[in-house]
């Protein structure tokens, strides 16, 4: 999953930036809608949070309790994020509105939206005593205030609504419903408006210095953002152009989340690629996005510089950078699509091969613990299902098993988990869990491990749905304990499905050696090839072996989910499918 660039081909791929259309003008297999393993790892390892979508929450309330005797309550709201251990972390507070039981607070609270985790939010409303009215809101001690009510929800509940607003009843602390009516709280979520701007440019360099002995330099560019601490953080790198001192690179697309603002200085470094990993600096320059736009308009070049051995001096090189194309555009974000009615439809396929072990045996991967501890299959279903369920309007999920012998005696590689012959859907994540537990009683584990039939079935559903509407994107989760026996058929099925609105997440459970499976997840840049000579249109597969959960860490399964918004956006953008107008009519709420 983490691109270490120890393989040369992978190392030469462009990284970071924002994905545009695959197989068209800006084609690169490793760009992922702004999320990229190497760049994210770089951020996290330096303690800097990666850039994700910022959401502003606006709050209002109605029918609040009247706590004051001579006038009405003076309410203020506080927003918390609930951590995995149950502790509350304050995200922000509104201002105090005087004398109102139906306040509409102006002060917004910002929260970072992360697709891959469930983000529970807790809201507390307080009546601020008049003696504190001149104290800055930040300094107010909440214990000294009158508590008016609490509400909880999950962030994705709000952003997936068409109106992006959610109204909740206020309760007592800890969720106990009050005997009295405590009123309601309405939360409205907005992406910060500027988060949609992105800049697409084509740059080339001329007269670069030759750093290679027997041939010419193999240049690539790395663009970094300067951070407050003085250091720089890379946001993108181009592909490597071999053997060329006047290289033109494929178009770069940078989103405003990456460069901050058009006036933020960016460092552009030009390196000579070496397969050893020791890339040699050819030259660099410092320009903001606005400067680059100026270079484009004036059709002039900017000279690269090289740090000189003399302290403080730089050597101005003959090499120059030109901006051939510069275009500012609005890119619709993932949430733009979601709130206009687009959906992620979840499908799951579970491995019923004999290698899992007899389910009655506590060592079996399919053992259902009577005390409630979830097995690996159940954990994977929960972790993925819990996040995606908010994006699926009817919560009806196709669920299959493969590699098992059903009641009629035949081994099937795609049987309905709920045991029925016709209906393949179950209701909710609970429905998947229940069907799974029941199937363990009715289905005998058999084999071999074949993915082809399940992938073809999912592709059929995805393909057929296109005739009805273009707003559904499908996510198939395959949970398996073993290495597949039909690698070529699986590749064929994946290549055939690669042009459909479908992403496939494969989770490997148990201790098998999954290295062969990693070839399906084309992170190294090598596109999958079918037996008929067709090459995959895009990389739709993520594979990860599941490990034991350690408390506090992000689970690897959730790291899989991070890639989904990018894959969804790639598909939509490549076909110019735009989000509908806000509040577009939709039959499902």
């Amino acid at each position, binding site marked *: 999953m983490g691109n270490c660039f120890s393989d040369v081909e992978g190392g030469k791929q462009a990284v970071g930036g924002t994905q545009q259309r695959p*197989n068209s003008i800006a*084609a690169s297999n490793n760009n992922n809608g702004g999320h990229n393993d190497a760049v994210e790892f770089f951020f996290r390892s330096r303690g800097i949070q990666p850039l994700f979508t910022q959401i502003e929450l606006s709050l209002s309330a109605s029918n609040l309790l009247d706590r004051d005797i001579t006038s009405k309550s003076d309410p203020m709201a506080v927003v918390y994020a609930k951590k995995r251990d149950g502790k509350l972390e304050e995200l922000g507070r509104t201002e105090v509105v005087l004398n109102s039981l139906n306040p509409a607070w102006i002060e917004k609270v910002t929260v970072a939206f992360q697709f891959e985790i469930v983000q529970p939010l807790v809201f507390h409303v307080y009546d601020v005593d008049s003696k504190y009215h001149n104290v800055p809101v930040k300094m107010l001690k909440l214990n000294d205030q009158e508590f008016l009510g609490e509400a909880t929800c999950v962030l994705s509940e709000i952003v997936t609504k068409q109106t992006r607003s959610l109204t909740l009843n206020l309760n007592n602390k800890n969720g106990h419903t009050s005997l009295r009516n405590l009123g309601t709280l309405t939360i409205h979520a907005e992406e910060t408006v500027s988060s949609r701007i992105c800049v697409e440019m084509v740059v080339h360099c001329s007269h670069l210095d030759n750093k290679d002995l027997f041939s010419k330099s193999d240049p690539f560019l790395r663009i970094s953002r300067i951070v407050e601490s003085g250091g720089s953080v890379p946001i993108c790198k181009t592909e490597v152009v071999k053997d060329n001192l006047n290289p033109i690179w494929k178009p770069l697309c940078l989103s405003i989340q990456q460069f901050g603002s058009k006036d933020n200085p960016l460092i552009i470094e030009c390196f000579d690629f070496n397969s050893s990993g020791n890339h040699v600096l050819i030259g660099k320059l410092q320009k903001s996005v606005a400067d680059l736009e100026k270079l484009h308009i004036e059709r002039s070049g900017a000279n690269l510089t090289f740090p000189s051995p003399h302290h403080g001096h730089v050597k101005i090189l003959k090499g120059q950078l030109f901006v051939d194309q510069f275009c500012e555009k609005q890119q619709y974000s993932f949430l733009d699509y979601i709130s206009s009615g687009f959906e992620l439809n979840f499908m799951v396929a579970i491995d019923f091969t004999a290698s899992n072990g007899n389910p009655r045996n506590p060592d079996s991967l399919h053992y259902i613990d009577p005390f409630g501890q979830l097995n690996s299959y159940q954990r994977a279903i929960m972790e993925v299902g819990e996040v995606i369920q908010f994006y699926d309007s009817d919560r009806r999920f196709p669920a299959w098993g493969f590699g098992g012998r059903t009641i009629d005696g035949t081994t099937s590689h795609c049987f309905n988990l709920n045991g029925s012959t016709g209906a393949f859907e179950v209701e909710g994540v609970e429905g998947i869990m229940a069907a799974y537990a029941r199937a363990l009683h009715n289905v005998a584990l058999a084999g071999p491990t074949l993915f082809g039939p399940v992938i073809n079935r999912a592709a059929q559903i995805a393909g*057929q749905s296109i005739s009805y509407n273009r707003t559904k994107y499908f996510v198939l989760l395959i949970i398996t304990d073993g290495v597949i026996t039909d690698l070529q058929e699986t590749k064929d099925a994946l290549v055939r499905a690669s042009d459909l609105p479908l992403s496939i997440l494969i989770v490997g459970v148990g201790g098998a050696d999954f290295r062969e499976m990693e070839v399906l997840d084309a992170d190294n840049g090598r*596109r999958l090839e079918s037996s*008929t000579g*067709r*090459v995959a*249109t895009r990389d739709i597969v993520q594979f990860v072996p599941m490990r034991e959960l350690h408390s506090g860490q992000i689970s690897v399964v959730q790291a899989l989910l991070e890639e989904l918004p990018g894959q969804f956006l790639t598909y939509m953008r490549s*076909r110019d499918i735009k989000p509908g107008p806000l509040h577009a009519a939709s039959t499902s709420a």
Partner: protein
Amino acid sequence: MASTFLRTLEITVISGEDLRNDRRPIKKNAFAVVRTDSYNSRRTDMDTDGGSYPKWNQKLVVDMSMHAQFITLEVQCKTSLGDKTVGTARIPVSDFVGGYVPESYLHFLSYRLRDHKGERNGIVNISVRVKVPEYASCSRTELGIPLGMGVALGQRNFGGGIVTGVPVLCNYPGKY
């Protein structure tokens, strides 16, 4: 009047990757030829500076017989000795016709190119859309008449004349 025995394809030849001539990356002047049968072929312009990763982004409209099973795409390179075929891909028609998606779906496809020795030589990226004849692509509710009946439609101009009742294969979504 569109013939019943031909389909019209809109093929956009987008780009090529890692094209080589005798193992060495080609320098320039690559172009692509799409051939549906011995009578129907179209070619793109040359990419004069694209090297071994040429970008054409050129739409070719070509007819294809209903019975065709393959179309071929050749990437050639103009050299001082003439046009040299760099690689060929044989594209099964079933990759963009039939299947579960609607007939007018825009398919983004990529193929492995093989040279005259049968060895791999790069990848070509294309998009294909089967052009559905106008009168077949309108929904029933728009036209208000059932398909397959030879009736002149007052407002629409199909090049003059009455449509004679020639059956046309077309794909309707399952529900309206």
